[in-house]
């Protein structure tokens, strides 16, 4: 293989696929990036067997061929190359010589034949979405993904496609985030995509281009103009989330998102616990046209916040983990939100006021 390219194209390709390079030492070749040169195009591939990324950039191919180069060295090197024409040429012993100006560097690599073949998805049925919309959907839902790896289904995002469009759902069983987008499609499926993958995918997508998503039996493929991302699907059955979403409420509170978020952030300062999974309990109550937030840490101090709000229905006193509330308010772009509650033991719902496509369900904390 012999190619000639400029630095920016090489750096772009490496940067795109780097997220899929394996960090585990089980298979050394997976710590590498596969370079394939043909038809005036250089294709970068990386995989950790869970996620695979393929990115093609144009280059002058002087001699077609392929090689696997260790991402650690090749990636760092490409970033530091001067901005001139660069030639990469493979040698007989699975190494590559990179020539830039009068200087050269030789890196040992691996035989490209040993690199795992990335699965091909032949299914042509795909849904197309604007990338910025998809990014936003993932951002709003991924906050509720569970970090506990004992139950893999909760590490994923349920992706449900039906004739009403796309629905994404994630839950760690303490809270649940749901986002829908309506469009017409004939596809019907329900799969769980690893949450980490979706977060990575949404980082790689160019917001100005559409993304196409298609599913195979065990894989999902995301495609944009020059990048393809393949991920495995999590096996298992996602619990029926529709039955946990309350159909009614006894108290409806409408208030400004920003004011609520700021007050919560102040209130949680005192009760913040360094241990992530420990509850940061804040108490919420209603009084006429105000929502009152109280938090109390006996050895630090206490805080009392009063936010103007439109309140309908019964008065209420309820405790929440402030971190869970903050997570949701940070991803809601609407100026106002509804907080809908039914007694102090039933889950509360947070929704944007002007749209009906997002819902965040949160369980209260029992306090004595």
């Amino acid at each position: 293989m012999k190619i000639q390219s400029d630095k920016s194209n090489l750096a772009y390709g490496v940067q795109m696929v780097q997220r899929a390079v394996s960090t585990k030492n089980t298979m050394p070749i997976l710590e590498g990036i596969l370079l394939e040169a043909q038809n005036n195009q250089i294709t970068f591939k990386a995989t950790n067997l869970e996620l695979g990324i393929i990115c093609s950039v144009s280059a002058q191919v002087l001699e077609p061929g392929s090689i696997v180069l260790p991402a650690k060295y090749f990636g760092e090197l490409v970033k530091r190359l001067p901005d001139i024409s660069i030639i990469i040429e493979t040698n007989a012993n699975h190494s590559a010589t990179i020539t830039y100006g009068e200087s050269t560097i030789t890196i040992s690599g691996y035989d490209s034949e040993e690199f795992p073949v990335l699965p091909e998805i032949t299914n042509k049925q795909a849904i197309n979405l604007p990338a910025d919309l998809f990014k936003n959907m993932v951002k709003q839902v991924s906050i509720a993904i569970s970090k506990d790896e004992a139950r893999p289904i909760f590490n994923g995002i349920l992706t449900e496609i039906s004739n009403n469009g796309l629905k994404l759902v994630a839950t760690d069983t303490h809270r649940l985030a749901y986002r829908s987008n309506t469009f017409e499609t004939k596809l019907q499926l329900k799969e769980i995509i690893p949450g980490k993958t979706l977060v990575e995918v949404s980082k790689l997508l160019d917001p100005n281009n559409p993304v196409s998503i298609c599913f195979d039996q065990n894989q999902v493929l995301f495609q944009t103009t020059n990048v393809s991302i393949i991920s495995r699907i999590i096996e298992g059955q996602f619990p029926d989330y529709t039955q946990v979403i309350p159909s009614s409420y006894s108290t409806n509170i409408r208030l400004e998102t920003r004011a609520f978020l700021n007050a919560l952030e102040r209130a949680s300062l005192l009760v913040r616990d360094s241990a992530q999974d420990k509850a940061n309990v804040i108490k919420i109550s209603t009084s006429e046209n105000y929502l009152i937030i109280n938090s109390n840490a006996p050895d630090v101090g206490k805080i009392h916040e009063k936010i103007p709000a439109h309140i309908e229905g019964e008065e209420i006193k309820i405790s929440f983990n402030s971190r869970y509330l903050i997570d949701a308010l940070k991803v809601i772009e609407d100026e106002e939100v509804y907080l809908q509650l039914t007694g102090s033991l039933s889950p509360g719902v947070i929704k944007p006021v002007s749209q009906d496509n997002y819902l965040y369900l949160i369980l209260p904390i029992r306090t004595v």
Partner: protein
Amino acid sequence: MKITEKLIQVEEQLSKLLSEVQELKMQVYALEEQNETLRKKLYEKKDTGEGFGNLARLYEEGFHICPAHFGRYRNEGEGCLFCMSFLKKGESR
């Protein structure tokens, strides 16, 4: 004579034993009877929601009762949406 006396003694002991066995037999019979009735009562209760009560108690004691996490320990103070919806469904039945 001595042997006759001894035999009489043995006979007395045997009849004592026999009466004890008879007494025990009656007691065992009564216990078996009682056991049967209690068992019947227990099953009757289970049919009318004892199982649900057991699950509710398990949840109270800090364990998951939802299919996804069944039997796993819950973090203290943090509920589970799926357990709660299950409990709700049971209560409204």
